[in-house]
């Protein structure tokens, strides 16, 4: 399984390509974790545009990355899902923990907006 990585500001965009099952998801998990660490990325965007198959192991990968990213105050967004992948993710309620975005640009905007809100709130709390 090949994963394309792009980085903008503190946001890592991971675009896996191919079939995501229990076998390949261990590669996805490891590579994302290593890249997050190497580039000190705070937020993560999953772009599933080039994923041709996904079973519930994909859900496990997303939930695992969510736990790691949010521990350090980061946000998670998902984009590029076809109707079938969307159905699998909805089944597990993934969009209660991650943002659903219609494009990479929208995902970046959402993360930036939300991050700004959190920072403003934190600052306000510190000052009061």
């Amino acid at each position, binding site marked *: 399984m090949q994963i394309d990585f792009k980085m903008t500001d503190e946001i890592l965009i991971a675009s896996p390509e191919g079939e995501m*099952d229990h076998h390949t998801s261990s590669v996805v998990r490891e590579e994302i974790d290593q890249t997050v660490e190497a580039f000190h990325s705070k937020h993560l965007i999953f772009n599933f545009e080039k994923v041709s198959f996904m079973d519930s192991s994909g*859900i*496990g990968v997303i939930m695992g990355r969510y736990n790691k990213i949010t521990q350090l105050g980061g946000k998670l967004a998902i984009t590029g899902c076809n109707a079938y992948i969307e159905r699998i993710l909805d089944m597990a309620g993934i969009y209660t923990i991650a943002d659903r975005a219609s494009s990479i640009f929208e995902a970046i905007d959402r993360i930036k907006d939300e991050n700004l809100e959190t920072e403003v709130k934190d600052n306000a709390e510190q000052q009061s």
Partner: protein
Amino acid sequence: MPNSRVEADRIKNRMKLEFSNRSENESFARAAVSAFAASLDPTVEELTEIKTAVSEAVSNAIIHGYGEGEKGIITVECLVDQERRVIIIVSDTGVGIDDIIQAREPLYTSKPDEERSGMGFTVMESFMDRLEVESELGAGTKVTMIKNLDSAYEF
């Protein structure tokens, strides 16, 4: 499971696969079943649902079927009958499931520290029309799934 017993004379075609409990065989298993079922001319959606359900059942057998490092065989049987039903049986001869009702609960996983979603049986249930799980501790697990293919395209 009397309801899913299939009368032998109604079976149109069948196949059986045996392979080692190695995770790289997951893609092989779902591709093989999908190629076999393709002869019934299912919709793309139906085929994707079958592939996903097979992937879940085979992954379960690989992850949970046998003990750590234990080598085992997983069997996938696929039958199609005259009513356009696809019957898939995934079985192992491994450790068995202690509590099937609990195992089938959404989000339940026996390995919470391994980032498992616990959604395997839920996915199988929602993508197939029928799911039956039989298991005996120390003897193995057998998962039977049935999908009724749409016949709207038959003339």
